[in-house]
């Protein structure tokens, strides 16, 4: 490496090391005032503890449901957007991308107004006479799933869109010309050819859902503890560094695990 190249890389690398790499590694081996093995042994206790397992289980389950919803709603949206032309297509695409620029706090906050005790959905249920006493909706798994789906749907749409836009519309026409119905052409031509985009979408949504903080905090509260809200409580309420670091390790393993699986799926898809 020439000296000039090294000089170009060095300042950025120094910041990266100080602001990310070194603290992240140090957090696992040396939390303040703890033994070097404290995090690992705490990690071992956590993954066998029923209370912690319930939080991990809830985080993973809700993450899987949100992933299924985001892909299930995001793929049809991406497909219709990719196949539509003109002014409306452009406006709908912009509406799907715009939320990515908007604060998660602002986006999530709307559900408090919709699902809260004096919220719009409760009022609607009472007004239509469906029930006199609307059920608790805020601080339920449903609230968290709705909030996370709203948050990650745009990400699923753009990941699917870039894949489905590359599928030649002539191919579904060819399949239909050969006698496949519209549904069969969709499932046996469009979906398989967009496979890699769907895998990317699912990975991003799952990784985002199991690490999100704002949504479980605002919509799940203390009755729907998830890994992120639990980590915050260990770090700032009980100041238990080993537990906070071990929770961070569990979250990181989940994210790395699903990214690894998706890379593997991508490689198998490429050779198949």
């Amino acid at each position, binding site marked *: 490496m020439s000296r000039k190249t090294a000089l170009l890389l060095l300042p950025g690398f120094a910041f990266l090391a100080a602001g990310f790499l070194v603290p992240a590694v140090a957090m696992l081996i040396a939390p303040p005032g703890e033994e070097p093995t404290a995090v690992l042994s705490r990690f071992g206790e956590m993954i066998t503890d029923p209370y912690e397992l319930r939080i991990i289980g809830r985080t993973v389950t809700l993450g899987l449901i949100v992933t299924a919803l985001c892909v299930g709603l995001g793929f049809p949206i991406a497909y219709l957007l990719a196949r539509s032309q003109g002014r409306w297509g452009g406006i709908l695409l912009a509406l799907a991308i715009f939320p990515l620029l908007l604060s998660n706090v602002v986006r999530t906050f709307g559900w408090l107004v919709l699902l809260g005790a004096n919220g719009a959905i409760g009022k609607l249920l009472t007004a239509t006479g469906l029930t006199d006493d609307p059920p608790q909706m805020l601080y339920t798994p449903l609230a968290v799933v709705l909030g996370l789906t709203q948050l990650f749907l745009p990400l699923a749409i753009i990941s699917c869109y870039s894949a489905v836009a590359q599928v030649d519309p002539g191919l579904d026409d060819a399949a239909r010309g050969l006698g496949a119905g519209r549904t069969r052409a969709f499932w046996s031509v469009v979906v398989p050819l967009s496979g890699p985009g769907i895998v990317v979408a699912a990975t991003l949504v799952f990784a985002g859902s199991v*690490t999100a903080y704002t949504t479980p905090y605002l919509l799940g509260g203390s009755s729907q503890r998830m890994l992120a809200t639990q980590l915050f409580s260990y770090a700032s309420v009980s100041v238990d560094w080993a537990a906070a670091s071990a929770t961070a390790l569990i979250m990181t393993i989940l994210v790395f695990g699903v990214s690894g699986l998706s890379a593997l799926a991508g490689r198998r898809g490429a050779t198949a």
Partner: protein
Amino acid sequence: MRARPVAASLAVLGYIIMIVPILFVVVTAFSAGRTLRFPPQGFSLTWFEAAVTYDPFMESLVSSLYLAAGATVLALLLGVPATIAIHRGKIPGKGLIEGLFLSPLIVPELVVGLALYQQLMIGLGLDNLSTLLLGHTALLLPYAVRVTGASLALADPAVEEAARGLGAGPVRAFLTVTLPLLRPGLFSAALLGFVTSFNNVPLSLLLQDREFRTLPVTMLDYVQQSYNPRIAAMATLILAATVVVAVIAERTVGFARIFGGINQ
């Protein structure tokens, strides 16, 4: 578009989930009532006045703007040279070095926030402003490297060599030939970086201090204490500012290009 009833109904449901909650925030902000409820009682701009005269919101707004601007400038100043080295330099393990610069994208931000809080603020006694700036800069480096890298990959190195051949020095060749080619990439990276830093919750969450707080975290705390439309008004103001940013982005480089760079 030919009729596709199943896909179309799923799409309508998806758009409802994405957009309707945001509309309800706006409607609530114009309420004349004292609590967050639906339907809002009366119409007034009282809560907007209450939001812009509320010191914790305004102070943290200024802090968040400074932090986002500082981290964006730093990330570009550090990231662009690194990108040039990665794409143009003769270095072994190019992929590994680029991967290292992109690595903050794959570790959960809350985990990075915990690491910085525990190691730098508690462990080394660093103040929270420096820690926030360091953390946000590291978080934005991947954007700077990847988005400007996409522009650089499109720019033909032969053009820069031609300029050098015609007698321009390396600095002049960079400033007059390469930099203009990078402009859309730099603009996209700056815009994405600024917005990402300004909106961030998970990384900033643990790095708060009485003296220097960020706006999104201040708003989260506010909801916990008081349940009135002041927060909806503040959220609506952020929404309006974001719409302005989005229109500028669309008019200049285009939405698709901005997000095309990061989503690969």
